[in-house]
């Protein structure tokens, strides 16, 4: 049995300074100084996959699209126990087109379909584009059913019990055929940490490089990028003791007739 997790390296937007949110003439935002990290939803999906692989001989693989710099993230995944890693090589940036991303992933994964792939994992969405569609499009291109907003997967003999968010609750589905899941946040799915020994060993492992076909899409284009500016009108209750602060707070709430 094989499982594949599609992961993306993104900028850590939390450390970008307020004043650096500026759009340049070529409609980009220069945040190259920010750390490169694994997309947070992809971390949750990778952790889910690793938990399912923990207790048997399931082969696990991670796939990413990008330049050589993304191999750092792949080696982190190898250090966590993933069997193999693949980088789909491209110099183009596909942040704004999830369909092209899905085609590139499909080019690689369709060649692996003879290896008894049971589950393909994708994160629910990723920066920069935040489209939230790549997983669903990839499933459709591969002819697989897709379950979105997955929070947990448990193995039951020859099937998997997949839990996902639906309107008004959580639905638990039993699945015994190949499926693609898009994973969202849930409790206690923080990505495990690698040992130093595993990290050093991962540096020596080979990362397979795959060259995809070239795709174009002219159905839409980016016309404008605009920064969502904050309000910047905070009234601070400061230079006073705790009790007075709370008195002011209660006064504000009463004045606004909210309480």
């Amino acid at each position: 049995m094989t499982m594949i997790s599609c992961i993306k390296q993104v900028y850590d937007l939390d450390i970008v300074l307020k004043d650096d949110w500026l759009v340049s003439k070529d409609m980009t935002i220069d945040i190259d100084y920010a750390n490169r990290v694994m997309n947070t939803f992809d971390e949750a999906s990778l952790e889910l996959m690793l938990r399912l692989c923990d207790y048997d001989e399931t082969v696990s693989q991670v796939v990413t699209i990008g330049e050589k710099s993304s191999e750092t993230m792949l080696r982190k995944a190898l250090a966590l126990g993933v069997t193999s890693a693949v980088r789909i090589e491209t110099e183009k940036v596909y942040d704004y087109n999830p369909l092209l991303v899905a085609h590139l992933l499909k080019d690689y994964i369709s060649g692996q379909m003879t290896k008894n792939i049971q589950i393909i994992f994708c994160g629910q969405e990723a920066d920069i584009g935040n489209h939230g569609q790549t997983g669903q499009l990839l499933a459709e291109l591969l002819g697989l059913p897709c379950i979105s907003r997955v929070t947990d997967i448990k193995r039951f003999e020859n099937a998997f019990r997949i839990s996902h968010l639906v309107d008004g609750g959580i639905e638990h589905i039993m699945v015994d055929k190949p499926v693609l899941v898009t994973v969202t946040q849930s409790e206690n799915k923080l990505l495990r940490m690698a040992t130093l020994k595993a990290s050093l060993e991962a540096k020596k492992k080979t990362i397979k490089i795959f060259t995809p076909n070239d795709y174009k899409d002219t159905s839409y284009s980016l016309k404008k990028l605009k920064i969502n500016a904050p309000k910047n009108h905070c009234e601070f209750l400061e230079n006073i003791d705790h009790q007075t602060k709370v008195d002011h707070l209660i006064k504000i709430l009463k004045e606004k007739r909210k309480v």
Partner: protein
Amino acid sequence: MRIAVFGNLMNNEVSDLTNQALCALKAYAKAVTLIVSDPVEEPIMLPCNELYCYSKLTGNDDNLIVRKMVEDYILMYKPDIVVIAMSCADQVIPKIALKCHYVSFLACNSLLLDGPTVQVAKNVYGGNASAHYQVESPLIMSFKPLKFKENFLSMKDTKIQISSLRGVYNKDRDDTEIEIINQDDLLSANFVIVCGMGVNNQEEINKIIAFSRKIGAAVGGTKKVIDHGWLPIHHLIGQTGHTISPKICLVLGASGATPFMNGILDSEIIVAINSDKNARIFDYADYGIVDDFKTVIIELERKWSGL
């Protein structure tokens, strides 16, 4: 330009998502057809040109019924723009787009028509920026769910058409189970306390939950609080969780990352308590207290009974 909005009606009242879509498109109401699979009673007044009803599609696979409805309508009428105003939008839109050769966007902020030009805006860079796309092909999209307060002005009696398409669509397996989670408290509360990582541990979260019960507030958490398992997933507030719009949103120990802020910006008042004066939350809050939240909450709890 033909615009098709797929939504829900219950007892002739539109759902919140459907209301939001119709209000967002009110400038183009004459080009809008609302399509539903729910029963309709005449007369009905809606802010659109026509109501089209697929009342003969039944079964328990809601997603499949929606797909059949949308694909049938697209085949017959070839609308230029399709809006899915339903909670299953993110699951069905990409699939329909591929099959019908439409461009797809999810969770959009706005749609603008300028003659033949169609422009869609949606958040990018984790909500820190907004991208405006010009679309050259037919478009299928959804709007970002908001707690929409706007009431629309209805047009005169809306024309109703009933589709003859019949079908029963059930799920492959009958052993699925649904765990119902009541989220009404959080989504309809007038006072919400949101806990960030600065709250620090489960014990403090439990104290805040106990305090919130005393004062009639609901409790939500940021992504990191949910990741740590201190609150369950249905308490997640933010871009990928719930968007709330209470009268008061009290934020404790959250730095103010943009994906989280996108979940609370519709609040009438945001009060932030954080020990770091440079925390981004203060760029968005109406009132700020730079202090340890524990000492403020203890004092607030002590004085609350006097209100």
